[in-house]
């Protein structure tokens, strides 16, 4: 049984991580100067990143329990507590969030000239909400953060976005909201069914009856599937990505859409194991469809960001495929792939942002041949392209391979079809790279393109480093999550009312 290990650091680390950006945002309200606002925001985001250090160093990956726990009564009448903690799964996302926020701020340095202060405020609030989502151990608290994040994101897209930003922002907001409110209903229903508690750990131990599970799972699914986004709930994503400013895209692709998959892991599986197993075939099929469909969509795009957005659909298809393989390999692969996708797609959007800032066009056709002008940029884009393609020795490969392994162990046909996505992935990414970087310069505007400057390189470098670090030593990430994921599987198995369909590992398959 999972426990909440109370924080023993002497200071409330996780709360600090939630509220430091909020404090930064408040401070920003008193800063009128745009440059000062940038530096302040950067300072706060770096401080937040710095907080990851004690978090990671003091984290004990050998126990599955929630750590750095804090718990206070919040709304006693409803038995709602401010209860937070991290385990081996969420800690990784917290770290990713803080990193990508720093990078987002750095790429917005000159790109955002209008209402800088508000932009930074929105970004910091967003960071706080996202960290909150990942550390919440109370469903109500979780939902608060989950929804609160909509506000800054809506503004980021709507205020600082591209020409069609209004449509995109509203579409993003409504799509997500519709899914979320259904989850809200399910959360309340869970509250009553589990004996008036929102405590995630307590609910994990509660066995719901099967019919209830089926319905509640569907409601949670609505929220998470939209967020992931799974086919066919994905159409908000391309629009949102295309219109969002670079920082918004990075956060959106890098972290926000991970929250959906995280939700599956943290809530759907341990709460409703029977339903999860029952729904698995459908979800696996949707995942496979998403992989192929997303890839196909990417082929049809003429817009740089839209192409990447659809590639996200495809990649997130891998993530859900891995998670619902419901075995160790699939789950860990899925989690790793989420991190990878955060890094790679974050970097891809960074790349788009860098070039967009110079050319103000996202049409692939407006580029071509820029490799000759901007070699550093071209190299960066190349590395990220191959990371996205899943070249072995980059992070993308580890994720995709372990997911395919998990899926293969689950049911071969899914892995076989999903593998086709790898071919398509190489196709559209390389075609994209070719159209952008290769060939002769066709657009005279690109003749005097400036290469990446120091700031941009500094923003890109950590991502590039992560591409290879994870690619060559993924155990750094796997090591952190092992215990938690194994525990998750045990938990699910223990709770299953029907025969355990979740394979702990290969034991059952190989050990004959």
């Amino acid at each position, binding site marked *: 049984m999972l426990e909440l290990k109370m924080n023993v650091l002497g200071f409330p680390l996780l709360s600090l991580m939630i509220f430091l950006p909020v404090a930064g945002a408040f401070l920003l309200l008193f800063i009128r100067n745009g440059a000062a606002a940038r530096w302040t925001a950067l300072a706060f985001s770096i401080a937040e990143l710095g907080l990851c250090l004690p978090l990671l160093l003091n984290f004990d990956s050998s126990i599955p329990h929630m750590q750095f726990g804090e718990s206070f009564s919040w709304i006693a009448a409803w038995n709602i507590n401010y209860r937070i903690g991290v385990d081996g799964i969420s800690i990784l996302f917290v770290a990713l969030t803080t990193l990508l926020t720093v990078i987002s701020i750095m790429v917005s340095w000159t790109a955002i000239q209008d209402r800088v202060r508000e932009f930074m405020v929105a970004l910091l609030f967003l960071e706080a909400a996202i960290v909150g989502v990942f550390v919440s151990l109370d469903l*109500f608290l979780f939902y608060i953060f989950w929804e609160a994040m909509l506000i800054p994101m809506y503004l980021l897209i*709507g205020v600082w976005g591209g020409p069609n930003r209004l449509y995109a*922002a*509203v579409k993003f907001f409504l799509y997500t909201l519709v899914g979320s409110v259904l989850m809200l209903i399910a959360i*309340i229903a869970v509250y009553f069914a589990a004996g008036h508690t929102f405590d995630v750990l307590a609910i994990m131990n509660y066995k719901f009856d099967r019919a209830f599970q089926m319905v509640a799972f569907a409601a949670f699914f609505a929220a998470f599937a939209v967020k992931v986004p799974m086919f066919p709930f994905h159409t908000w994503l391309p629009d949102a990505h295309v219109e969002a400013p670079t920082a918004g895209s990075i956060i959106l692709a890098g972290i926000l859409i991970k929250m959906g998959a995280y939700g599956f892991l943290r809530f759907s599986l341990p709460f409703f194991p029977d339903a999860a197993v029952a729904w698995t075939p459908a979800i696996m099929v949707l995942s496979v469809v998403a992989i192929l469909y997303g890839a196909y969509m990417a082929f049809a795009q003429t817009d740089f960001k839209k192409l990447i957005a659809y590639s996200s659909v495809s990649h997130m298809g891998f993530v859900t495929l891995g998670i619902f393989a419901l075995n160790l390999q699939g789950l860990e692969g899925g989690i790793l792939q989420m991190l990878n996708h955060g890094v790679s797609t974050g970097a891809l959007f960074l790349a788009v942002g860098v070039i967009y800032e110079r050319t103000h066009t996202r049409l692939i056709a407006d580029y071509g041949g820029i490799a000759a002008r901007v070699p550093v940029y071209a190299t960066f884009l190349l590395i990220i392209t191959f990371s996205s393609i899943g070249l072995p020795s980059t992070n993308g490969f580890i994720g995709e391979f372990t997911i395919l392994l998990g899926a293969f162990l689950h049911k071969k046909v899914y892995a076989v079809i999903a593998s086709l996505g790898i071919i398509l992935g190489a196709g559209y990414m390389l075609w994209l790279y070719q159209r952008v970087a290769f060939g002769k310069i066709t657009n005279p505007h690109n003749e005097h393109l400036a290469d990446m400057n120091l700031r941009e390189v500094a923003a890109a470098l950590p991502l590039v480093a992560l591409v290879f670090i994870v690619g060559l030593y993924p155990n750094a990430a796997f090591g952190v999550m092992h215990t938690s994921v194994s525990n998750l599987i045990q938990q699910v198995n223990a709770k299953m009312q029907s025969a355990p369909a979740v394979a702990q590992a290969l034991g059952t398959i190989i050990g004959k």
Partner: protein
Amino acid sequence: MPSLYQQFLQSIKPVLPEAIIVAFALLVLIFDFFVEKKRKNILGWFGFAGVLAAAYASYHLMGLNGQFFGETLQLDPFSTFFKFVFYIACGLGILLSINYLKVEDINRGEYYALMLLATSGMMLMASAADLIVLYLGLELMALSIYILAGIMRRDNRSNEAAIKYLVLGAFSSGIMLYGMSLLYGITGTTNLSLILAFLRAADLTNPVVFLAMTMLVVSFGFKVAAAPFHMWVPDVYEGAPTSVTAFMSAGPKVAGFAVFLRVFLYALEPLRAHSTVIIAGLAVLTMAVGNIMALSQTNIKRMLAYSSIAHAGYALVGLAAGGPDGAASVMLYVCIYALMNMGAFGVVIMLRKAGERGEEIADYAGLGKTNRTAAFLMLIFMFSLTGIPPLAGFVGKFYIFKSAIQAGLVWLAIVGVLFSAISAYFYLRVIMVMYMKEPADGIELSVSPSLALALAFSVTAVIVIGVYPTDLLNYARASIAGIL
């Protein structure tokens, strides 16, 4: 032997808050003769002081419970809770009005007096223990507001709003009265407790009981703006002076819910089996009409009118859920609703200045650039009305849907949240216009200390309740405990 004065005080004690309000209203009427036109503001502040005084009195009388004055008046935590909401509505209403009246050139003392009298009517409604008091309180409130709605005498829209409200209001109170007469005929009493006692033992299949109940649903539904009895709302909200609209959207609606709760969850409790179905149906219709119709509005007052219809729908969900939690959820909800809605109207009032109505949503274009504070406030209120955490609106809706699910009305909760998701569209549109459209030309706002005070109060409340609802929640729950 206590002095006459003490005796008087002792006897008036149960209605002291109402008496204070009425006294201040009368004083305002009298002072009106002596205050020159330019300085009528003073009357506003005086009325505001009256509200504060009444609130203080209510606070002190919180321990005084029971039925008074021949069982016509009930003092209990329930009524006290609502009185505080009315103080908020009235206090904010007055603060919103002070500068606005000058702009509209309707700066008159009677305005504040009527507002206070309307408030006293609401307070009597909330503490009515007898159908007669209920009826009279309601009429006192309604009549005052008819006049307030038409107070812009030379404005056609204001006239029209007043006559529409009056005729329909009278029509609905005619229906209510008929319903009450039937109820009286069946139960032989107009006292709510006695009605409850009678109905507990009575044959509930009696169709006349049903008829009476239905007629009360119609008239209370009219007051809270439930569809299909809502149609006056957009027209009246649009035509009435904005400050009155703000007050109207909070006060009478909340009062309507007070009597709804008192009558349907208390006096007519034995009829719950039927009333729940009816109220749930009304809730769905109301949410649908409010949210859908709001989508295509271009006038922000009309939009907020439909939004207030929609919110009545959510509150009706809580009412349909019933029980202590259902009632508490309605109470919490209307309280939060009053705060955020009046805040939103406060921003609308800010945009009104001489020669410019500032009522079209398009008028808000670029407000995020030209006036960050106003835009930010509107943003908070809009998100809160949408029900996005961590703002108060979410807490309210959460409790409502929680109660509904607890009562087994899961389908109703699902319908509710879906409509609430739709509502995001029209609230977001305001934000969109403010932040994502370029300003046409410089927008100057009419800001005044009173308005600033009102907005500061409501925005603080919306955020604080959103983040830490515990106390208010506990208060609402405690207020209903022991009554249902």
